[in-house]
């Protein structure tokens, strides 16, 4: 029964992603994007990564999406209009080429994935006891690891995040009219 829910989520991810790239209208595509991220968070739960799923919802849905919406909703009206009016050509040469490349890429990936199916990496099978179990407290585990093994990357990411946000704010700052 739980598997069925996974496939529903998987289906939702793919459907909303597809719609997000095909629908016209930026706002709609952003909300479909949100649906995709939300569904993906559901998928994480089935990978026993509840903390990541929460983070996904908070950072992406709560952060990125809002940032996106706010980014142009707070901008000039004509920016919005321009963004809204963007029309897509459906049957351009480039679309077909892109579609072909995307499909070919998918075929490549699927081929690779199905090939590796038979022999899952050895380290996955070495010790099933080291697998994360549904009853484990992943937040605890992550917290321990962040504070110990991944402390430096964590700090770096923090600094990086701050730099990025400050930089973004700086770039987006309106030029003083001179």
């Amino acid at each position: 029964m739980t598997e069925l829910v996974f496939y529903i989520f998987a289906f939702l991810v793919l459907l909303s992603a597809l719609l997000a790239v095909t629908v016209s209208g930026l706002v709609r595509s952003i909300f479909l994007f949100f649906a995709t991220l939300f569904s993906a968070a559901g998928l994480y739960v089935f990978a026993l990564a509840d903390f990541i799923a929460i983070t996904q919802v908070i950072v992406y849905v709560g952060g990125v999406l809002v940032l996106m919406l706010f980014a142009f909703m707070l901008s000039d009206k004509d920016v919005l209009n321009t963004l809204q009016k963007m029309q897509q050509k459906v049957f351009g040469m480039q679309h077909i080429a892109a579609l072909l490349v995307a499909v070919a890429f998918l075929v490549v990936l699927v081929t690779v994935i199905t090939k590796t199916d038979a022999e899952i990496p050895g380290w996955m099978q070495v010790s099933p006891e080291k697998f994360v179990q549904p009853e484990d407290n992943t937040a605890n585990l992550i917290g321990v690891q962040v504070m110990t093994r991944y402390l430096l990357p964590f700090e770096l990411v923090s600094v990086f995040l701050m730099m990025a946000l400050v930089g973004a704010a700086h770039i987006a700052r309106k030029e003083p009219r001179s």
Partner: protein
Amino acid sequence: MTLDTPVVLTDLAIAAAILPLLSFLVTGLFAKPGKGAFLAILTIAISFILSAIVFSQTWNRLDIHQQYVWFTIGNTSFYAGILLNNLGSLMLLLVSGIALLVHIYSTAYMKGDAYLHRYWAHLSLFCFSMLSMVIADNLLLIYIFWELVGFSSYLLIGFWFTRDAAVQANKKAFIVNRIGDLGILSGLMIVFTQFGTFDLQQLLGENGLIINAFVQNGEWINGVHTMPAVWLTVAGLGFVLGAIAKSAQFPLHVWLPDAMEGPTAVSSLIHAATMVAAGIFLLARLFPLFNDTVLLVIAITGTLTALMAATIALVQNDIKKVLAYSTISQLGFMMLAIGIGQYSAAIFHLTTHAFFKCLLFLSAGAVIHEMHHVKQVAPVDFDHQDIRNMGGLRKHMPVTFIAMLVASLALIGIPLTSGYLSKDAILISSFEWAALRGSWSKIIPVTALITSWLTAFYTARLFFKVFLGKNRWRILSPEGHIHEAPPAMRYPLVILALCSTFLIFSVNPLLYEDAWLLRGFPAVESLERINIIHTVIPALVNLLAILIIYFAWQQYARRDKTIFTNRGFFYDFAFNKWYIDNLYQAAIIKRVLNLAAFVRGFDRVIVDGMVHLLAKVGQALATLSAWLDTYIVDGLVNGVGILSKSIGNFARNMQTGKLQHYLLITLFIVITFFIVTYFSLAI
């Protein structure tokens, strides 16, 4: 060295002919405007003296023939030379004599003209051409000078070149004469082909080639060459055509009346006395060449022309036109004389006619001269040559009046004048000629007879209208005064008047056969003398002529109104010159011009069109082959180039500066790489 040695005589004759050329060259090249009279008169005077000497030494003596090689073509040499026989030396004297008088007359008549030097030069050129023609010893030379005479006449008719009528007239004269020249040229070609020479003496002399040639079985044989006999006739007709054109005979007479646009002195010299006589002269020269057919043609042409011109002269009002038509008519008489084989009579009439017609014209010139002065002071413009505007000039111009009287009587052919002698010679001969032939041939002498009466009438009309009756010009120009002509004009009139009497031609004023001139030429066709004709005809002619003159005097001198109306078919027909000009205009000139226009169009559209079509076809073929070359032949070559170029383009197009392109291509390569690796691994 005496004067009668042939060499001296020919030299003198050459000098007589060349001197005017000298005058022409000097005057033409160097003379200042208005000058040249002295030299021209001097040269023509010397020419006249030399001619007189030559004439006195050659008349009725052996022919003198002197020639030099002119040029050689193939094995034939062409000579230039002089033939002095009775005909030649007579003409030489006649031409130079009359020319001298006209020259003198011109000094007064042309006085004040701005282009006088041109006049003298052209007049000298004419004298040179005419004098040379009459003494030339071969047909080629005669032809050359014949054309030059036409050319100088062209120049002189168009002397007042600013007048449209004058330049129309001289063009017409030259072109009509050219038609005749074609005839002569054809004759020349035939004679040369048959006999291989142009030399008159070889051809026509005693035992000449022409005389020895004969016609047998329709072939014309001269011992060396043969030719179908029809060419003999054609040759004769060719020369006749030339004579017809030059002597203004029907149907080529149209140029002469128009030629009256030239100065009157010129008209008198060229278009009355000498040049138009050239045709008669030529026929007389070539008389032995003509066969019966040709002679009949000549006779008929002459008669027809005489009648036609006389009828037209009846109704013309321009004093010079009347005289012009009378000239045509008289030339017709001369042609008639030649046609009936009496070329001696023709030459006789030519000589007498030269004097009295010249006199008529010069008198008319004097009248026109005075009338022109009258016109200049007149308040209204009028035609000073129109006889309807003249009248009563007898009292004002007595000398001219008498001169004109003599000339008119000579023209009519009243006894004691020269015209009586020569005209009787022709009339009587024609009756005698007709007597030998069928009854139809009587038409010719009878027509001639009628014509001579018509002559009497129009001459009388002209004379009375000009000199008698009322002074009609007074009405037009109350201020005008008419004087006697100046001396330079008067004396030539007097001399010519004397020459128009019987005195210098015959001791017997009534019998033409006693004329010395007539006896200078052999009678070619001896006619049986019918005595009764010799008395009846002159009597008949003169009696009736006098009656006609009286009638004309009644009509034109005594009252102002005549019984004649300017209406009716015959009047219109004559007044419009038998509609011949109109006919030519419609039937020939227009046709030729239309043909020319058509040919021009043909040339443009068809001939050039063909060329353009060819060019178009060539162009199309070239385009086709260029296409083939570009796409098929070069295609192979270019294929390689195009390939590399398109690869280059392809590579170049990748560098679009568009991120998505780059990405796409990158992925494309990644995938390709993967596939290749995958399959190579799979294998």
